């Protein structure tokens, strides 16, 4: 029977290699797992050869590999011996590692467990009746109904929960093929091909504006689907739900929601209402205003751009 308290032997060099291959920092792993960067460093440098299975599972999740890929299979010695060896390397472990490696402490473990159980029971007793203190968190993603090839469009990630509560979040966004990230506010913490991650301590509600660009060979009519998740420390990841099912590649400006080759009053009001304050990151406000002022636009397929123009019926007046 597998226990999350079970100790398993890990391969520090494999952890470092995979982390570096994925362009992740020790800080990222530490935040994801809930330990210090010193601990990650010790794991990678094999100063601690064994970790709790739970931490190994979190480590594998953070590195997006199977736990088996992180195991040290070269040494079949009893884990207790490895622990004893690790114990001689460092006399005073940091607080978050305490209890993980020291056989001497194993005698104290029942007492520590008893104390923790008593503290937990006391905490439950004090908190009972005050309601569920875990925030009910929701993540949603909104994007336009369409965008043209080789065009920048916005994606808004909204995380809501108990207002004003400070939470540590890991937000993961899997972009569809043919879509590249341009920039984001706040900027993403890491990128692995089409997967972006943010690690943030933030108040709720939290909003991320992500600007993406479709590839210039994105085929008109293609439907692009987004997915992702948000994880609060110590909680299960929840999927970020889409406000609409997909984004379609089509020769219309993303702000022209009814596809009539105009950006009318309602559409420009909607754009400014949603994205005002994000001008600095490069959303195409000047083009949107130019199209609104001109009264219309056309899609220049060869040039891969929108050209504001007066609608045919209004020319010459």
């Amino acid at each position, binding site marked *: 029977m597998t226990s999350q308290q079970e100790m398993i032997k890990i391969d520090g060099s494999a952890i470092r290699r995979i982390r570096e291959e994925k362009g992740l920092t020790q800080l990222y792993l530490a935040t994801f797992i809930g330990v210090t960067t010193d601990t990650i460093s010790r794991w990678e440098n094999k100063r601690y050869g064994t970790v709790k299975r739970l931490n190994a599972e979190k480590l594998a999740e953070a590195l997006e590999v199977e736990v088996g890929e992180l195991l040290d299979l070269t040494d079949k010695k009893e884990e207790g011996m490895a622990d004893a060896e690790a114990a001689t390397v460092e006399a005073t472990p940091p607080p978050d590692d305490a209890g993980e490696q020291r056989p001497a402490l194993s005698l104290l473990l029942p007492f520590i467990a008893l104390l923790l159980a008593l503290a937990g029971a006391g905490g439950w007793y004090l908190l009972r009746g005050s309601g569920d203190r875990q925030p009910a968190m929701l993540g949603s993603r909104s994007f336009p109904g369409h965008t043209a090839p080789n065009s920048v469009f916005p994606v808004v990630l909204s995380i809501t929960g108990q207002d004003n509560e400070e939470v540590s979040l890991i937000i993961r966004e899997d972009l569809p093929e043919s879509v590249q990230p341009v920039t984001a506010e706040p900027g993403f913490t890491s990128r692995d091909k089409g997967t972006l991650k943010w690690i943030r301590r933030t108040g709720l509600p939290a909003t991320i504006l992500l600007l993406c660009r479709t590839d210039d060979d994105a085929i008109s009519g293609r439907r692009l689907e987004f997915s992702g998740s948000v994880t609060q420390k110590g909680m299960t990841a929840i999927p970020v739900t889409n406000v609409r099912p997909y984004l379609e590649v089509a020769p219309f400006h993303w702000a022209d929601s009814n596809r009539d080759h105009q950006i009318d009053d309602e559409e420009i*009001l909607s754009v400014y*209402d949603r994205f*005002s304050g994000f001008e600095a990151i490069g959303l195409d406000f000047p083009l949107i*205003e130019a199209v*609104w002022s001109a*009264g219309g636009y056309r899609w220049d397929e060869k040039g891969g751009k929108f050209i504001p123009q007066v*609608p045919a019926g209004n020319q010459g007046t």
Partner: protein
Amino acid sequence: MIGRCCTLLFLLVGLAAATPAWPGQAVTARYEEISGTRVTLVVEIGDPPPAMIIIEQEIPAGLTLLDASPPFNKMSGARSSAKWLLKDAGPGRQRILMQFSGPVDARDLRSELRFRVRGTESSEMITVTP
């Protein structure tokens, strides 16, 4: 006595005119001056202000809008109305000064303001006449 009443009335009118749109009311507007060829539209913006306000001023028949401050952003195809985009305007007062090609009859003046109140997904429109 009459003088004091007039002074009090003057102060009350002055205070009312100086009060910005009250909380919960995002935008109000009125024509402040209609004098010959000059017209001034005053827009009072509440707090929190909308991200954008679109002002559409109808051009009285037979007249042309010669100049405006701030300049208008768009003239309709038939030149029957001019539009302004007020972006990121803070709470307070904005004046739109207009100079027409001939004397303006107040009965011919009409404008519409469109905006979204922050936090709502719907637009509001108010109509302004003298």
